[in-house]
């Protein structure tokens, strides 16, 4: 008879091995054993993804590993979520982030890294990709009831679109509903303050830390 600990290890190892089939099998085993799906996610799958995130920070693994790990975790969550209450499902998420690169900017590598690191740290992430129009960020954030809109820019000529986002949120009375995080090569803390953004993340690690702080304040 397989123990709970063994199944949790299988879930973690499946993520570490980027093996979606093994993750799905382990998720089914967790259901058969009546393991709390929230526990299966947090102490199995997410543990594996956090290990990948730690190795990424040390330069031992790379962006594709983060993405493959997140994909593996998502495949298993699809199996588990049918057996979870809405409250249970929500409790596994640290928060919901809509992320993308602003209009006119096609630099998406940093965006992918930040999105993957947020996923690895338990955030539910909706990645709108590069060259995203201001109103599309807002529409998506409304659709998914996001906590944070995270936007990046790699060029000084696309940074003004960040300001547009804040203005559009103000104009539509939604500024208090969504926190806005900004980042990217030329973006600075000073710029973030100037345009009235909620927070600035210098790099992916800082973005995760700042997102956690935002959520901690929101949940107080």
């Amino acid at each position, binding site marked *: 008879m397989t123990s709970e600990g063994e199944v949790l290890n299988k879930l973690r190892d499946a993520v570490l091995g980027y093996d979606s089939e093994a993750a799905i099998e382990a998720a089914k085993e967790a259901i058969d054993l009546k393991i709390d799906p929230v526990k299966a996610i947090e102490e199995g799958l997410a543990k594996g993804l956090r290990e990948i995130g730690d190795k*990424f*920070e040390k*330069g031992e693994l*790379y*962006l*594709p590993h983060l*993405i*493959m790990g997140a994909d593996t975790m998502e495949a298993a969550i699809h199996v588990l979520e049918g057996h979870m209450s809405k409250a249970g499902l929500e409790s596994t998420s640290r928060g919901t982030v809509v992320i993308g690169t602003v*209009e*006119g*900017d*096609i630099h998406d*590598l*940093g965006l992918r*890294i930040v999105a993957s*690191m947020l996923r690895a740290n338990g955030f539910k992430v909706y990645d709108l990709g590069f060259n995203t129009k201001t109103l599309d960020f807002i529409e998506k954030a409304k659709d998914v009831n996001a906590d944070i809109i995270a936007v990046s820019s790699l*060029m*000084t*000529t*696309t940074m*003004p*679109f960040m300001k547009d986002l804040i203005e559009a949120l103000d104009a539509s009375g939604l500024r208090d509903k969504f926190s806005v995080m900004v980042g990217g*090569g*030329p973006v600075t803390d000073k710029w973030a303050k100037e345009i009235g953004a909620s927070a600035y993340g*210098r*790099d*992916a*690690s*800082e973005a995760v830390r700042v997102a956690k702080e935002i959520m901690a304040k929101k949940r107080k």
Partner: protein
Amino acid sequence: MTAPNLWEVLDRACNTGPVMTGKDFDMKVFQTTTRLVKEHDIKYDPRTPVSSDEGLADEAWNAGLDLFREVGSYCISSGRLIRFDDSEIREGLKELRGEASVGEGGEMRRLTLRSIEDKKPPTIVCGGVIESNFPEGENFVKLYQSIAQEPLIDGFYVGPPLQSSEGRLVRSGTPLETHSGRSMATWVREAVRRAGRPGLHFISACTPAIANIAAADPVDGLRRSDGIVATIMPELKTDYENLNKVTFSQDYGCVKHIYNGGMIGGWAGGPEGALIVSIANTVMAIMVYKIGIGSSYNALGYLRASAPNYSAFVTRPCVWGSSIGSQALSRNTKIINTCIAMTNAGPGTEMQLQEITSAQCAAIPCGREGVSQGARRFKVRPLLGSGMENRFWGELAYALAGVKRDLASTIADKMLSRYEGTITRESDGGPLGYTFDEIYDLKTLTPRKQFTEIHLKMKRELEDLGLDFKDDPGGNS
């Protein structure tokens, strides 16, 4: 048989290439690259920043060619693959003529091939300030005048963007950016005229194609002896903006300047994968951007270490990859290949000169034909750039001609060990440096003593390490 011409390439990019999602393409690049690193037994060696292993360079070339043959390239605008068979790639490589010419009149320069450890000086020293982020008008003219008045400079890169146009904020893709593309070209012509070098070559690097196209003017703007930058995006990707730049350059008959590389930490994986991808990206420059047609040259640029804690271009693994990539292309192609240096330190600092030295050690002794685009601080701030670091850029390129790779490796190792520990999140990658008006007396357009002293100190130190800075390295025509 001939290689597919540009119209056939565009047909594949826009109409006929197989459709694929971007994510699937990225993962295919990663998986294929990971496999090829193992198959070709390519291993990063941090002890030798400038490699002398020509067998490794040839393996890297073969792996890069295999990668391009297997995965092709991807147009993100159409979601289509642009692929070529083996015979087409062979024909494409034959299009390379091993020469190009830039500039006009007394400033015309002929770019020709150099070999590894060649005593021949670099055939082009292109300077500039990448993403200068300067205010429009007089100070912009003075910045490029300060570069153009340096005798070893054969041309320069004019990177986007201006802070403003007609006093208004410039946004990407808007009409004001189109207008600023034209304004920049006009001011550059004024800068080179003031420096007494009206035919000097420049490379226009506005982000949207239309801003470069608006700059085209055989008299007062971007001439046919000037160039437009088209970029290969990480990894093996293009889009309609870049294809528009290539198409216009070919139609107008100006120089194509292709910027590509491989990124450590991204879809290429580690340093070994980024090396292979950088070579595959260059093959893409030949096949998709048709660098063998017309007067064109390549800049094998970033092997950027992209990690959460920092981003940097002149790190130890980047220098290692660049040194092997230089040799791989020099030994196996007739591409005119140059180097750039995205520094973490700003102008007027010792660290920036150390980073420039590391970057060029992996280029000139390893067979690159010259240098291009100059230096910049990766973390862009306004007014960071001057003629002073461009002077060093040129003098060092000449001093490195004929230098053995072993010596280049020793020098690069010494330079890297000075600054690599300072590239941290806490330091924001390195010292900010000084602005143009701090480095130069703007009335006389001469650098201030404090900065000429740093420059001379660096040269004396490199002389002690075995370099020979000739007082007058001579012309380059």
